């Protein structure tokens, strides 16, 4: 925290110091943080407006001051993560989760319905050194979260919108309606209707400006479930356009497999324990 009198969510008055922003990493691939660096045109204004501190490596954490805003990337997969996120929360005035990992547990949450010990014994030469939780979970499962930025990775525009709203003291515009609304606003041809390509856009939260349908691909659901995701109805339609149940189940089992609406949709097709990823 800089000088007193600055609340990142309140009206900005004459500032005596810049608000501080920290970036924290948990189990993730760094893609979302790269989005921050990808804000080439804005990075100058950004670093003038805020004081940015990065804490990328778990070992280097020094949670010894308060930050106005913490951006948290990654999911909680170890006991140490679970402990550390509490410290980060305590040191943050506002905590913003960034990306599918931080909001729903990420693709690594596939293990939530599998046997982790079996995985570690296959992957690592010395599985006895691996200390990991049975599950990968989002930050909100552990501490209160003030704002969520969805996506794998997050959208640059949404990140800038969130930060500029924080600085201006207004509510950020992060719509929770479907990707379809953005897709139609972009004037795209609907890949599901016009090509029979499976698309999760109708049940996925907007924010990417319909990136995938804009280049003729179906949405993979990387922004997670939209506000009133009717996955059962979409499943029926995907079947009607000829998608097989295994592929539908897989499409719900990616970046946001642990988001309740997508998990339910996947489980409705293949309940846990069935050999869904066998060699069929």
């Amino acid at each position: 925290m800089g000088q007193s009198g600055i609340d990142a969510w309140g009206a900005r008055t004459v500032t005596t110091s810049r608000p501080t922003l920290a970036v924290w990493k948990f189990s993730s691939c760094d893609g979302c943080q790269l989005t921050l660096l990808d804000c080439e045109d804005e990075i100058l204004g950004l670093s003038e407006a805020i004081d940015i501190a990065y804490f990328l490596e778990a070992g280097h954490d020094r949670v010894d001051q308060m930050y106005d805003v913490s951006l948290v990337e990654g999911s909680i997969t170890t006991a140490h993560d679970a402990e550390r996120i509490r410290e980060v929360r305590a040191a943050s005035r506002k905590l913003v989760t960034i990306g599918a990992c931080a909001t729903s547990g990420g693709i690594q949450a596939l293990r939530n319905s599998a046997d982790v010990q079996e995985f570690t014994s296959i992957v690592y030469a010395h599985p006895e050194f691996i200390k990991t939780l049975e599950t990968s979970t989002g930050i909100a499962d552990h501490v209160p979260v003030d704002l969520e930025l969805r996506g794998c990775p997050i959208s640059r525009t949404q990140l800038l919108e969130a930060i500029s709203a924080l600085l201006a003291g207004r509510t950020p515009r992060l719509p929770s309606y479907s990707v379809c609304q953005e897709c139609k606003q972009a004037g795209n041809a609907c890949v599901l209707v016009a090509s029979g390509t499976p698309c999760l856009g109708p049940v996925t939260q907007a924010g990417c400006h319909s990136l995938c349908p804009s280049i003729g691909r179906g949405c993979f659901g990387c922004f997670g479930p939209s506000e009133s995701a009717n996955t059962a109805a979409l499943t029926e339609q995907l079947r009607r356009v000829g998608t097989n149940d295994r592929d539908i189940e897989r499409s719900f089992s990616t970046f946001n497999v642990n988001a309740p609406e997508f998990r339910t949709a996947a489980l409705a097709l293949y309940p846990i324990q069935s050999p869904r990823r066998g060699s069929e």
Partner: protein
Amino acid sequence: MEDMFGSDDSRTRYPTTLEPEPAQQDDGAVRKPVAPQPQPQIEPQAFGGPLILTVADVDQLIRRLGADGRTVIGPKVDGPVIGYQPIGGAADLPSGWGDEQGPGHYRLRRRDDDALFGYALAPTSWKRYVFPARSELFRARREDGALAITTIPPARPRYAFIGMRACEIAALDVQRRVFMRPEAPDPTYAANTQDMFVVAVSCGSPAATCFCVSAGTGPEASGGYDIRLTEVNSTPNSPDHYFVANAGTQAGADVLAQLACKPASDSETGAATQIVQAAATAIGQGVKLDDVHELLARNRENPRWDDVAARCLSCGNCTMSCPTCFCSDVVDENPIGDDGVVRARVWASCFGVSYSQMHGGNARTSTSSRYRQWLTHKMSTWVDQFDVSGCVGCGRCITTCPVGIDIRTELEAIRATDTATKYPESVRPQTDEGLAT
């Protein structure tokens, strides 16, 4: 009083001054169109007799409109669909392409001729040109402690729209009643439409989703165009590929005069009339719309709303595709490192949950209430607001619904289970005629 709006039907669906003659149905019953034809209706020979245009003349027409400084928009193959895009000449038109449309279904199809307008209509409407998905309204900046506001004057693109269908012209008219109310004309809509040039093309190949005949809007425009074309094309590369052209305004007649084409013979106009009549027969009068205003008003609690909600994705595709839906949100954007704010208007949909968010709560939390809002607004409360139906029968919401929900089927289902809602005395809706029964 026989129903909640009174049996004398004193609430007309359109201003009486604009009321067209009620069409006579086959069974002899009088049927009131729920959407008006664009006004004023154009007398067939008002701007000279029909002329014959060749494909080369159509090309010239597009080029002349462009040379006149207009932004010419017309049908063009755009990936897996026909879209309305900027065009430079007849070569950009979807020659030989047709479309197959059904609930949640669209496919381009090769035709066995080289018709330029041989499709029904584009799944994306002209709306995005006259009411853009995003338009900037003003910029505001802090200057010396005060707020300095700079309005952003809307661009004046001088559009020429080539290939507007009758239902699409009717949709323009419906939106005009929304945006151009004398007490508050919308500057963006005004700038985009006041100098537009419309080349209507009558329908020869309607889709299974079209129901303009029931809606009273098509398949041939009776007004609202500068030039109206009907394409006649019997065989590929036929010398008999021609367009019967009618001018609807002096501006249209002037442009046609520059093309120096020959007058149409009786047999040529007859061929054009036959094409339109065949289209009207194919579309049919199948959708009963004359009672929907009252039907939907009294079926607020019909169980069908829950039934459709189980299938509906709340995705908003229907509202965004609909050529008359006009809802928007107003957003402020402040770029980082810039003290200024841009206020913009962006499309919104009543299928979004936040759409109905008000101080103290949300009015429509369920999909069933949102679907009911959409259908009831289109066909019923729109009439109360704007004296016209909000549906022109273009069928876009049927084609573009990812799960193929068909408003025609939903209306039928509601009619079949017509359960007039009985309200307790205390909450009975007030109507012009007094308390509903």
